[in-house]
């Protein structure tokens, strides 16, 4: 079973991500922000990381930078799932090594399709 690390400070949003991806057969671990996510990622290698941008303590872009610095996460798909839809932010995401950008709110089928695609490509 492929594993997903879902990072978001909104509990209800994490519930929706977990619900959507569980039905598609993924095993999901939740983190409330970048700091918690990084700690979890250092202990376990996830197949995909799905992260929000605006979170307390550590935002999504900083998390991606930190993850990409870990040898085990050099090629892991990391998707941003955020309310941010601006081109400038997307360019920053691409620059730090994000694999893709999903704007909230998400549609479960599209989320599953994207996660399937990036895990099959990895």
């Amino acid at each position, binding site marked *: 079973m492929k594993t997903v690390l879902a990072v978001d400070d*909104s509990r*209800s949003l994490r519930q929706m991500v977990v619900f959507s991806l569980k039905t598609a057969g993924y095993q999901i671990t939740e983190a409330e922000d970048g700091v918690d996510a990084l700690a979890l990622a250092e202990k376990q290698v996830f197949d995909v990381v799905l992260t929000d941008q*605006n979170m307390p303590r550590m935002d999504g872009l900083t998390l991606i930078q930190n993850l990409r610095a870990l040898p085990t996460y050099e090629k892991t798909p990391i998707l941003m799932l955020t309310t941010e*839809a601006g081109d400038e932010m997307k360019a920053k995401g691409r620059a730090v090594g994000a694999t893709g*950008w999903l704007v909230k709110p998400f549609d479960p089928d599209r989320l599953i399709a994207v996660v399937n695609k990036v895990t099959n490509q990895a």
Partner: protein
Amino acid sequence: MNHSDELSICTELNGFLQSVDTHVLEAMADLKQINLILDEAVVALNSSFFSIHDSLEMYRNSLGDEALNHINPAVNQAITALQFHDLTTQLSSRLLKRLNCMSDIVKSAQSMQNNKTDICIDKLIRLNSQASELNKSLHKKFNQSLNQQHMESGDVELF
């Protein structure tokens, strides 16, 4: 300008500031109450949604294709719509920060009471500059954009 005119201007200004302060504080209290109600509502909505879904899952095999063709899109729509809480929480948090800043500015301005007009004017100039600085700092804090106007799902882009 005589002393009585100066007192009148300062009194008028103080009355206006007190009125603004009252509105700002009440708006903040209302916003906090909205957040509490929304938090409670979303917990109840999510819990009900998952309960209904679990019940449906138990009978999935006995449901016909026609029923499932109606249920599946409805479930997806509910998941998209239930993300409203994340969006509204971000917006209300920004609104609360703005109101807090406004309240700070009003409190600073209120300290002008009983001062002479020239001191009031000097202080107003400084307040204007303070408000402008706060505006810049808020703008930096809110560099993130949240432009969603509806609850349809957002764009997906793979790099």
